[in-house]
């Protein structure tokens, strides 16, 4: 976990305080912790080893006197190396100059090929392309039927005629020509990489369709086996790119790194859910954060960016600074957060959130109730909740269809929140001061060999104790969760 990794690194550096540069021996100790984090994330042991060598060579000589937070600096190095390892050439589908462009999906059983085939078709369709879905998994029971249903659902033509996968795929090309489809997506049966017969069959399919994009579909929950799978499929059919599936779970997805390292081919897409639009372009930086257990901060920010309007952002900024917070603000945020999707998902993306909270069962209706209560208050009451006396309480309860107890609870909890905000406000001020101090000294916090980031949001420290990302640093938080 990122939290525990940074915690452990902090521990190491505490011992080194007052010393100069990181020695080779210190780096060894650091490397051990990083290795542990990578292994927890299912990065292949051997991939982890070579990866750590790279990190080590950069980490040796890190100036721990100058760095305000050496642990953070090491994590930055690890993160950068991860992003560069996961990214590289940007993933784009190859497009054939002579249509149709053929995409062949291959992988182990149950990795999610059929669903990804349909998702990809949906994506291409939304971009104005004309895909044909081809069911060449004649092995698994009802696999063809599954793809047919999905094709129907997204209104994309479907084809699966022929005695064997090779015949089906070959005929599919004719069908595409006949229908004027410019993309052909072939779903194949899942197979083990050591099944010679089935691997030979796959090779024959590939040759029959001369696919322009042979994509390996791999489950984000895969463990150490991912490298064997990737290497064997690549040797047999030549892999052009990867789709990583099921990243909506809590697997850290180290397989992404393993596969990328052994294939050197881009990870093009990520499957983020069972619905056909839960499919996105792969983001190396997000994945890097995830492998380090940082939560999916970038996605969260992106979502928040989309839902919160400028006024709200300005207001949030002010709140952060001053720690002043009203029920009116709360109502606005509540409504926006609701728009960000199921709360459970939103919480899941946040780093440093205690497990109890991630696992808490959230009744979305509760949001509606809270909203109703606040809506039943006058503008004045929302700004000054202290005004709310007994009779106002009854009025609000009646207006919102709740009880005075519920109104009371909300007010009490709001009080606690205000407290918490005040603390955050204090922290905001402290940070501002520190920032001013820091900027005087110029680039002292910029580690050697890296450029300061211009124009990019800087989330450094999110998820660090005492930062916004980590609620456990906030005294009132425990009290809030405490009374069940």
């Amino acid at each position, binding site marked *: 976990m990122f939290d525990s990794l940074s915690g452990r690194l902090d521990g190491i550096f505490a011992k080194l305080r007052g010393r100069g540069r990181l020695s080779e021996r210190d780096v060894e100790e650091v490397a051990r912790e990083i290795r542990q984090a990578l292994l927890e994330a299912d990065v292949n042991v051997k991939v982890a080893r070579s990866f750590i060598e790279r990190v080590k060579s950069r980490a040796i000589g890190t100036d721990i006197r100058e760095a305000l937070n050496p642990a953070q600096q090491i994590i930055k190095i690890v993160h950068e190396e991860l992003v*560069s390892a996961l990214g590289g050439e940007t993933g784009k589908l190859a497009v054939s100059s002579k249509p149709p462009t053929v995409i062949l999906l291959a992988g182990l059983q149950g990795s999610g090929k059929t669903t990804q085939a349909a998702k990809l078709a949906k994506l291409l369709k939304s971009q104005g392309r004309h895909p044909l879905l081809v069911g060449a998994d004649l092995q698994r*029971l009802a696999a063809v039927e*599954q793809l047919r*249903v999905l094709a129907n659902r997204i209104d994309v033509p479907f084809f699966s005629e022929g005695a064997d996968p090779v015949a089906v795929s070959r005929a599919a090309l004719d069908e595409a020509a006949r229908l004027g489809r410019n993309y052909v997506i072939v779903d194949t049966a899942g197979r083990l990489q050591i099944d010679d017969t089935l691997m030979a069959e796959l090779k024959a399919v590939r040759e029959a369709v001369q696919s322009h994009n042979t994509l390996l579909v791999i*489950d984000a929950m895969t*463990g150490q086996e991912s490298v064997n799978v990737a290497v064997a499929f690549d040797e047999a059919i030549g892999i052009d790119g990867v789709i990583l599936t099921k990243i909506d779970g809590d697997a850290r997805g180290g397989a992404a790194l393993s596969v990328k390292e052994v294939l050197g081919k881009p990870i093009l897409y990520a499957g983020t859910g069972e619905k056909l639009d839960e499919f996105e372009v792969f983001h190396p930086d997000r994945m890097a954060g995830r492998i380090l257990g940082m939560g999916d901060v970038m996605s969260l920010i992106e979502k*928040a960016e989309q839902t919160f309007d400028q006024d709200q952002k300005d207001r949030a900024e002010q709140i952060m600074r001053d720690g002043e917070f009203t029920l009116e603000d709360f109502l606005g945020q509540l409504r926006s957060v609701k728009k960000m999707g199921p709360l459970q998902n939103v919480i899941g993306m946040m780093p440093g959130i205690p497990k109890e909270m991630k696992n808490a069962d959230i009744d979305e209706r509760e949001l509606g109730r809270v909203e109703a209560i606040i809506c039943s208050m006058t503008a004045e009451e929302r700004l000054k909740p202290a005004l709310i006396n007994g009779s106002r309480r009854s009025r609000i309860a009646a207006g919102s269809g709740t009880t005075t107890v519920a109104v009371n609870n909300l007010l009490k*909890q709001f009080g606690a929140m205000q407290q918490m905000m005040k603390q955050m406000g204090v922290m905001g001020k402290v940070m501002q001061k520190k920032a001013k101090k820091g900027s005087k000294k110029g680039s002292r916090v910029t580690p050697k060999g*890296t450029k300061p980031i211009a124009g990019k949001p*800087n989330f450094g420290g999110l998820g660090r104790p005492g930062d916004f990302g980590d609620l456990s640093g906030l005294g009132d938080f425990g009290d809030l969760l405490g009374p069940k």
Partner: protein
Amino acid sequence: MEMLVVFVLILVVAGFLGAVTLRRRGSLQIEQPSVVPSTAEATPDTAAPVLRASLKERLGKTRLSLATYLRNISGRGIDESVYEELEEMLLLSDVGLPTTTKLLGAVRGKIAATQGATGEDAVAMLRAEIEDLLLVGVDRSLKTRDGAMSVWLFVGVNGVGKTTTIGKLAARHTTDGQTVMLAAADTFRAAASEQLTKWAHKTGAEIVKADEGADPSAVVFDAMASAASKGIDLLLVDTAGRLHTKHNLMSELEKLRRIIDRNPGALQEVLLVIDATTGQNGLEQAKQFAETAEVTGIILTKLDGTAKGGIVLAIQAELGLAVKAVGIGETVTDLIDFEPHEFVSAIFDSED
């Protein structure tokens, strides 16, 4: 509680936004270096191609090397490298670092107490350690009741092999002369009920199903009634794959359980299906499913591949859940009993 969570959450989102906008505008610059650099500014990795080639090569070799390790180790006295190699072997089998460290800790202890121990002794001790872990007082039988209907509920994440396992078990029990019924409570995935129906036809089991999108509880309810009235021996309930992180879907499982429990004692097994390729996330899967669905055992699938399924060691060590059957292929006969000894051998003896 719920409300509090919501409150705090919203606060945090507000906090995030506040922090983000402040930083973006430059009115608040954080003093620590970023941990989220952009792709563009990441240093180009010139050494990578070379590394990759050698890595690939090395992997090719290590596919042979588990056995080689052991040969190496066996002839040697004990030094740190012996433990390192054993560790690597366990890690490559997805046993995971915590359980690996525990196992090797025990081996270290024993080695220290043994005079003149060799690498061979270390290997033997490790094998014994794992077998002990696997054997501790567990019952690996799949439970049925005599003279009354038994229900087995199958749960797990997407694509692990729930439906296929049900097909195999249906075949096993119909062959034994029992009457078997399948309940197609995966009403979510496209053509999931067609898949199960084909298994029913293949195995001579009966099936209760509904249209896609129907309420799975209704399917289970109907199946319970139908199985009872027909005097079915074994009812196998297939469910939609679900990630253990999705709470609404997890509580749906609780609901299915409650419906089955209306016939007290009928629910004999809640089987969590785990794919042998699963990495460390398997432990979290097991924890969550055990908590919501009161899992009684594990079915480990796809052991016909080269993945070793070592995560079940961690699952058994931490949760006491034992593997009750093993999938070794896609046809009806590809389900076998779990033999701890064989399982351990597979970790130690590489075939290729």
